[in-house]
């Protein structure tokens, strides 16, 4: 029997532990956080952090070649910054604390605001002149998405809107007109007809789950019922319109049983498990490939009976604020170039995202492309009935998941919409009060 117990409390041991702790704390003083004053850095090299949205690495390399041809004294360094927007933000977070900031970084709709609020990214308006940016040529709603406190903190790059995808074959079998529904009320009538056509184990309509941005896709439908997540900073989850929308969602799943919340909606749609779904226009290529040879894919606007019925999404390009002014100007030149008419047309044709410049509409390759691909035109035409996203979703960190989870509860667990939405509102409000209001400019 061991008489010497684990000597965790012997005096020598205690001294040793204290010593180690002291040493550790001392070391933390040496290399703490708050570094990243990357003022240095070569102004002639532009480091571009991208997750290549829409598998666009080759396209981005081509755009870089075009840029370097036009500005021979500048070089662009394309960095693989992750496989999705979130990983780019992670890498950016690390750089903000540790150093080695990029010149241009891809930030999506839910990520950019926090960096603007903490002044980590640069308000671009004062640099527009030096870099030759013509703000007016950018599609108004797309550029307005990055407005905060009267300034633009990013410019649109890979922008999408949700589309209403529907299975034309099933639509025909159900005797429905070859178009999307004009309102969600109309779809409520179509739903059961579609359900009887598709049969058991399949659905007339599939909603993504919270992990797959239910909070994003439901925003538009919510508006058509007169509801909203918020009006600027005023939360509206418990407005009668929002509750009506949530009730519609719940009933379509649990009462009339023609809809479902599913983990992989694009797969479900492409294989015929769901007859319709709402997904990003960036998924158009992939969805068509999944459905190839099985059925004909139709795209339509989301219902918008009384004003905007759909949001926008995707990512823009931002510039960190803690780099030198020379670097910022060159970075903005690069941003301006890759989003100019010809280049945004090129990018959007090959990915499924939308062109971000008004003048791209008259670009010959674009005109040609849209004539041959009417499905792509739908997203662009839909822009006129889009609205910027509600603050509650995009400006509040973590809110997207809270909102999506709330709708999951309503749909999957048949929960009472008023109660659930009240809790969502309370949770979101708590975050706003704690993290945002103190930082808002007075």
């Amino acid at each position, binding site marked *: 029997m061991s008489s010497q117990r*684990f*000597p*965790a409390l*012997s005096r*020598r*041991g205690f001294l*040793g*532990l204290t010593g*180690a702790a002291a040493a550790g704390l001392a070391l933390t003083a040496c*290399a*703490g*956080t708050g*570094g*990243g004053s990357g003022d240095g850095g070569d102004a002639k090299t532009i*480091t571009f952090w991208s*997750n*290549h*949205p*829409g*598998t*666009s*690495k080759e396209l981005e390399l081509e755009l870089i070649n075009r840029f370097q041809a036009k500005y021979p004294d500048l070089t662009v*360094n394309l*960095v*693989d910054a*992750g*496989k*999705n*927007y979130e*990983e780019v933000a*992670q*890498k950016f977070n*690390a*750089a903000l*604390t*540790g*150093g*080695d900031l990029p010149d241009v970084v891809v930030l999506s709709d839910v990520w950019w605001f926090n960096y603007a609020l903490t002044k980590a990214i640069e308000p671009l308006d004062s640099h527009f002149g030096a870099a030759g940016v013509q703000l007016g040529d950018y599609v108004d709603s797309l550029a307005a998405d990055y407005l905060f406190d009267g300034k633009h903190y990013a410019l649109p790059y890979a922008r*999408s809107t949700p589309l209403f995808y529907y299975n034309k074959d099933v639509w025909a079998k159900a005797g429905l007109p070859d178009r999307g529904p004009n309102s969600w009320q109309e779809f409520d009538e179509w739903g059961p007809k579609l359900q009887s056509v598709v049969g058991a184990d399949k659905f007339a309509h599939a909603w993504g789950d919270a992990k*797959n941005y239910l909070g994003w896709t439901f925003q538009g439908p919510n508006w058509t019922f007169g509801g909203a997540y918020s009006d600027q900073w005023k939360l509206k989850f418990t407005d009668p319109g929002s509750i009506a929308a949530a009730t519609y969602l719940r009933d379509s799943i649990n009462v009339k049983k023609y809809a479902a919340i599913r983990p*992989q*909606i*694009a*797969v479900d749609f*492409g*294989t*015929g*498990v769901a007859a319709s779904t709402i*997904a*990003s226009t*960036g*998924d158009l*290529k*992939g*969805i068509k*490939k*999944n459905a*190839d*040879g099985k059925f004909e894919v139709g795209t339509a606007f989301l219902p918008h009976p009384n004003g905007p019925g759909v949001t926008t999404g*995707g990512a823009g390009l931002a510039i960190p604020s803690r780099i030198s002014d020379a670097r910022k100007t060159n970075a903005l030149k690069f941003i301006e170039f890759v989003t100019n008419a010809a280049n945004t047309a090129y990018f959007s044709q090959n990915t499924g995202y939308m062109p971000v410049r008004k003048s791209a509409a008259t670009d010959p390759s674009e005109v040609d492309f849209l004539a041959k691909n009417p499905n792509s035109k739908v997203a662009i035409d839909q822009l006129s009935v889009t609205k910027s996203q509600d603050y509650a979703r995009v400006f509040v960190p973590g809110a997207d998941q809270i909102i999506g989870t709330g709708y999951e509860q309503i749909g999957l667990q048949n929960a009472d919409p008023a109660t659930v939405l009240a809790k969502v509102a309370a949770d979101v409000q708590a975050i706003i009060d704690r993290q945002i209001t103190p930082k808002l400019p007075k």
Partner: protein
Amino acid sequence: MKHVGPQTLSYRRRERAVTALGYAAMACVLILVGVPLFWILITSLKDRADIYTQPAVYWPHSWHPENYGEATTTVPFWTFLRNSLIVTGVVSAVKFALGVFSAYGLVFLRFPGKNIVFLVIIAALMVPNQITVISNYALIAQLGWRNTFQGIIIPLCGVAFGTFLMRNHFLSLPGEVIEAARMDGANWWRLLTRVVLPMSGPTMVAFAVVTLVNEWNEYLWPFLMADSAEVATLPVGLTLLQNTENPSVTNWGPVMAGTVLTMLPILIVFLALQRHMIKGLTSGAVKG
């Protein structure tokens, strides 16, 4: 295990039954473990249409080994492989050496408070990745080592698991052998290499393979450190095959092909090393 007593019929029957049971159990295990593995392998050979289909397809309608071509050509696969080999090789070698040395010191040498030292070392196993990366990023960036091999390798070299494993094993070695070697005047190096390590074959193999696997699959740290394909390792680089916003439009064929290719080198190493996991290596100097 030889049976010394009379070999009765019932005993023989029992032995056969047990062996048969052994084979049956082995088959069961193979199925449970193997089916998902099989699924990964078969998906890597499927055409896109066969992946996104209902009901599930077990045998592809058309074989699509081009997925492997796609995985290795659309991204700089061989560069990533080379980088992975370098990073994993160096880190594993350093960790192995440090682990063995640390364990030796903790078991065979005297030092005041060395059990505290041991506790301190295994406490390192309790610190998750997410906490360490930001702080280490700051330090490495200050040293200017971002996007370099040394920046990726050095922070990964501290070893707690291996030290624990080898210390555990060294403690179980027969004291008489050690004492005998010391009486023969062996210095520490002789003791380690001529006496201790030869009695530790299987455990060394276990240490080596587990470390190799962990370093080979390391993702978060190389991801934050690497900016270009020059130093990016395989797990980081292969995500280039997945750059879509919506995972359900990714073409999983090439991604699974990439996964299989990533798996193969380590499996080959394991196949080679596990042959050493046989009885007889540790019977050493003490016979029954």
